[in-house]
């Protein structure tokens, strides 16, 4: 968190210095109305952009002239067709402008700059119909999402969520509050109908007991249902192993639990 705060503070300081566009005049509030960025600034930027494009075009034309001359000098016969009037005006050689993207058009092949220009709608954007082949072309992205493998196993039926189906609630204890002392007096004999889930334990009334008057209490208990009419499978050592969604069979459980002492 400290790193985040430090980074945030640093960003604020840096950006305070960089934010120049709206330092003077009104600061737009896009919730109400967004005027766009400063029109004058945009105009200047556009003018500069056009000038750069013009310069680049002139440089390109010049470079093409140089290239033409170099090629003609190096191999006159091979590139003679460039000056062949019949070649360029014969319908048999009438390439479609879109062929520039096929990679088989000779002119484009030896001129990668033109190829790229047509593709991204550069100087020849609309003429070469390349505009629709670049930014505005639909992009189909295949998102492949791999779900991880659940690691678990075992014979537990995984019913740990079934207790959520139990819609019975009780937030009261069994007993009463003594109006004199204010202490809660548990009712040891009232099991509220759940005696089958308890096991009564009798103590020996040891002399160490601080409360010899109570000689019995209940422990929670559950027993297997082994009715003769609907016999259940015998308890198994392969039960469990997938408790709560975790692979819960220990890999180093051979120690046992030892004795009670």
């Amino acid at each position, binding site marked *: 968190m400290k790193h*985040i705060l430090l980074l945030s503070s640093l*960003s604020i300081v840096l*950006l305070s210095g960089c*934010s120049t*566009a*709206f330092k003077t005049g*009104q*600061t737009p*509030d*896009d*919730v*109400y*109305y*967004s005027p766009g*960025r400063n029109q004058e600034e945009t105009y200047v930027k556009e003018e500069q952009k056009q000038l750069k494009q013009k310069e680049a075009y002139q440089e390109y034309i010049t470079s093409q002239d140089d290239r033409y001359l170099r090629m003609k000098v190096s191999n006159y016969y091979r590139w003679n067709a460039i000056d062949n009037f019949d070649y360029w005006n014969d319908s048999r050689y009438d390439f479609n402008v879109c062929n520039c993207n096929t990679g088989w058009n000779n002119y484009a092949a030896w001129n990668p700059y033109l190829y790229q220009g047509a593709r991204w709608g550069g100087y020849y954007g609309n003429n070469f119909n390349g505009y629709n082949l670049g930014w505005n072309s639909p992009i189909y992205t295949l998102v492949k*999402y*791999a*779900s*991880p493998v*659940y*690691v678990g196993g*075992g014979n537990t*039926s*995984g019913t*740990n*969520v079934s*207790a959520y*189906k139990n819609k*019975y609630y*009780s*937030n009261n204890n*069994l007993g009463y509050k003594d109006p004199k002392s204010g202490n*809660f007096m548990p009712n*040891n004999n009232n099991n*509220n*109908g759940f005696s089958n889930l308890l096991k009564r334990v009798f*103590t020996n009334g040891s002399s160490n*007991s601080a*409360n010899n008057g*109570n000689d019995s*209490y209940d422990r929670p*208990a*559950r*027993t*297997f249902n082994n009715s003769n009419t609907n016999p*259940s*499978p015998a*308890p198994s050592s*392969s*039960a*469990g*192993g997938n408790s*709560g969604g*975790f*692979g*819960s*069979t*220990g*890999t180093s459980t051979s120690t046992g639990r030892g004795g*009670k002492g």
Partner: protein
Amino acid sequence: MKKNFLYIFLIIGLSAHAQTPEDALRTAWFTQNGTARNMATGGVMGSLGGDITANHINPAGLGLFKTNEFVLTPGFAINHNKFNYRGTDTAINKNNFNYGTSGIILSSSKKGDRHKWTSSAFALSVNQVANYNNHIQFKGLNNFSSFTEQYLEELIKDRADSNAALNNYIFGSSLAFRTFLIDTIRASNGSVAGYQSLVPISTGVNQLNDVVTRGGYHEIALGLAGNMADKMYVGGSINIPIISYQRDITYSETDATNRLTNQFKTFEYRENFRSNAAGIGAKLGIIYKPIDSWRIGFAFHTPQVLSYRDQISSSITANTETYAGIKTAKSDDLNSGNPGERKYSMITPWRAIASASYVFREISDTRKQRAFISADIEYVNYRGSRYYSEEKNNQTQQKYFDILNNGIKDTYKGNINVKVGGELKLHTIMFRLGGAYYGSPYADENLPANRILATGGLGYRNHGIFIDLGYVHSFNQDVQFAYRLNDKPNTFAEQTGSRGNVVLTVGFKF
């Protein structure tokens, strides 16, 4: 009634603090987080737009941008939790740093009538959708049920013999069995007839549940929106959720009497749970201006697909006095020193938002811009979370997920959240107020839960910079279960209290 309990007892079992429907709720039930301006106005962003929070609520709102901006939103939260558990009150606080929507918006305008789209905007932002830093603590006397009974139910349901009880439940039942917190009940022929807990429940135990959670549900959003003639805005965002969640549980039960002959003094269960996830989702939206000043919006959030990896370590220390003395068992010791691991995928619920806003004076002169008021209504299908395994042929796994998914459908429901907020603008200074109501995700009407938000804040916008301060006070009502049983009425703590969240947004126009 007794018959019903017996029936439930026969068909089901459980293990608390494992993968439960509550894990699914963690990715669905939370109050909205955003920029300070957004939070100060109750979180309304279904139709308002013009704020980077729109990237996480209704991406069409990005279409209102024709300028660029960079936004940072640090925050600080104060949790004040109150609990009442079986008549005993507890209060505990937890403070932490957090953050709201932060990121960058880049826009472009097109001039002339040839363009169908007047402008468009792209946004890259991150938001802490939910903050998991909290502390839950409640205690009380219980002479009706014990935490240990869940282990008895699990072993009986699975028909586990003593070997299985010893080895096959190393994050819960086996720990209790190894520490003699639970033990077998022997039949007259020496066979295992069942299991008993050493907890002397009828004389009562003092229960204490302490849960510290950390982490957050973070969301990276890449949004794109188009503006059609300043009349209609359409947008969408791809979301990458990243979840980090840690939970440390310390649960104990202590003998409420001073008796030294009842073979129980105390036990303590400890659990360290770590969960990390990443995934993908999408949000789509539209905003339409039927007439000047009015905006109507609709957004749909697709379910997010998350890939999880969880780790768990747990231990039990029990003092059963003359029965077995003090014993400790740790899951790591039973698993070659390693925590337990699980991997799975999950789908979060979908949600839909409908909204309307009225903006007083949508004009360029910021001195004349005056105010807005907005309201959102959101429906969240909380019962729509689903867990999946890729191993479709593994019937054990698939059965587990099917039961879990059915449990989610049975436990939760779809519900609505309502948000209202507004702003008064006096040129460079702005005042904001709002409120929100988040309905209960629980299908059971006996479990009271809701969140009511009161929000407010101030804003300043000038010299290409804007600074917003927001405060959200959330009045919370919820229920917390330390454990759940199949065959006895369950007990829970009623949670009230509040969460205060201070957020500061600093933004730069460029």
